[in-house]
């Protein structure tokens, strides 16, 4: 009898521990969200989106240059990573059993584990050193290496969802394999592949470390690919560690905009991807 009671108590204690740890995970999430949204919203103004920073000491100004810079550099990174990533995704889904594709899979896993600061140093050595200047291009290269494994993985998964009988139907019509892949499998999955790309973009847009010594950042609006360019995360970092109250406020506003941007993209992509998988019954 006593033993049974003991077991029951243990069972309840365990459930209590589980609830406690769920709280331990969710409370920081809500605190971060609340902090960013409350502080960010109150620091936000229209001029944040339309102005570039004012000189030190003057109140006001905004991060127009950094918002546009983030979009510019992320798209530049996507321009490099998407063709490579989708091609590798095709290779893995269509010819997944060869030795090379196994090596590629391992490479993808290892690549997604490289610390982002190390990627930053690599991009610095590869692009900044030869061109002798921090540049938007270097930032784009760094972000493309971050996006690449994500795009390869999601593309492979998405293309694998295309049922085999569709491939066979194409081949039965006498089409060569490349036409089946290009005009049937790929064309039918374009919107799904885009979702994977959005997921990669949402990850890259928040990266700071690889941009610190590649895109570097500046205080004015620039569209030149071979010059330093401001980005939201780096601008937030510069402002957050500064002693000026007004700059710290701006950092919060920047964090708010960055979070809205990233969470929207991320949640949208996740929602669509689960929908796709549900429909295919996986």
């Amino acid at each position, binding site marked *: 009898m006593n033993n049974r009671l003991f077991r029951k108590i243990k069972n309840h204690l365990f459930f209590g521990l589980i609830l406690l740890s769920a709280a331990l*995970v969710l409370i920081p999430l809500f605190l971060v969200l609340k902090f960013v949204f409350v502080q960010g919203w109150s620091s936000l103004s229209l001029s944040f989106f339309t102005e570039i920073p004012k000189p030190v000491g003057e109140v006001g100004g905004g991060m127009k240059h950094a918002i546009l810079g983030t979009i510019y550099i992320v798209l530049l990174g996507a321009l490099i990573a998407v063709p490579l990533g989708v091609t590798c995704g095709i290779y893995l889904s269509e010819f997944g059993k060869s030795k090379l594709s196994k090596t590629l899979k391992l490479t993808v896993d290892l690549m997604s584990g*490289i610390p982002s600061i190390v990627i930053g140093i690599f991009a610095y050595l590869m692009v900044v050193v030869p061109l002798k200047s921090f540049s938007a291009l270097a930032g784009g290269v760094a972000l493309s290496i971050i996006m690449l494994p994500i795009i390869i993985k999601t593309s492979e998964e998405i293309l694998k969802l295309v049922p085999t009988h569709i491939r066979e139907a194409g081949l039965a019509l006498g089409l060569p394999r490349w036409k089946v892949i290009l005009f049937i499998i790929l064309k039918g999955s374009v919107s799904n592949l885009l979702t994977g790309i959005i997921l990669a973009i949402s990850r890259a847009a928040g990266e700071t470390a690889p941009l610190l010594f590649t895109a570097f950042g500046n205080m004015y609006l620039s569209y030149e690919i071979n010059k330093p360019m401001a980005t939201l995360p780096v601008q937030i970092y510069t402002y957050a560690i500064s002693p000026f109250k007004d700059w710290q406020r701006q950092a919060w506003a920047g964090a708010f905009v960055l979070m809205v941007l990233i969470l929207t993209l991320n949640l949208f992509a996740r929602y669509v991807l689960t929908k796709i998988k549900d429909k295919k019954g996986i």
Partner: protein
Amino acid sequence: MKLKSKTQDAVLFYTLRVISLLVIALLLFIMFVLTKSAWPAISKMGFSFIIGREWNPVEDQFGALPFIFGTLITSFIALIIATPVSILVALFISEYLPKNVSRIIALLVEMVAAIPSIVFGLWGIFFLSPLMKETIAPFLKKYFSFIGLFEGPSFGIGILTASMVLAVMIVPTISSICRSIFELIPKHQKEASYALGSTKFEMIKMAVIVPSLSGISSAVVLGLGRALGETMAVTMLIGNSPVIAKSLFSPAATMASVMANEYTDANTPLHVSSLCYLALLLFFITFLSNLLAKSIVKNFSRLR
């Protein structure tokens, strides 16, 4: 001239192969470039770089031990906090909640992973570090000072603060892998345990945790990999001073944080090369931990 469809296919096949080879070559190339730029430091200092305790760029003295210590201690504390929590949350989602609710909670946990590390850093500076200084540190000092790890004044930022934020950041990594492993457990295995008269706790212990142990350990190793390489949040919260201190309240520096802080200002060749040496070390540490995680999973699936 029209190519035969077999030739056309060969063209496609080899294009795909070449591009895949390119991506594999990229990884090797990253390794090569890092090694090449670290070479001056490697050839000058060799192994003594790793055990050297003095980091003084002005005097051209470079020892990486404080940073290796900082990286290991923060990741280790983060793992100690995050591992049980992640496993329990994964169990909560997969075993306790009805499907609809569990989806929402799972989504919330994964949302933590989507938050950029700079935002965690910002939150850490303005929310967690004052909280640490005024509430958590005095509390730990009052009740746990006998452990010997909580000594000296807390300035809010330091090893413990950085580790706590790291723990929050790696929970989603560990728990989402654990969850996918728990979902592989066949239903009849759980029912068999219930049929023996187990309570839910005993069922989870017997039928869920024990068979998943190796999967869980690979999830933990992957979480470790993430913690080792995390840069921004740690840089903003650890205090950035290259010392090896006993107290968890004291500031320190990690391999990633010193790179973030010093790389743009490094002006002697040896300084730059030493930082590249650090990058190479960090690269290999994370590389090995990911490889380890992979091999655990591989052995695990062979056993099944």
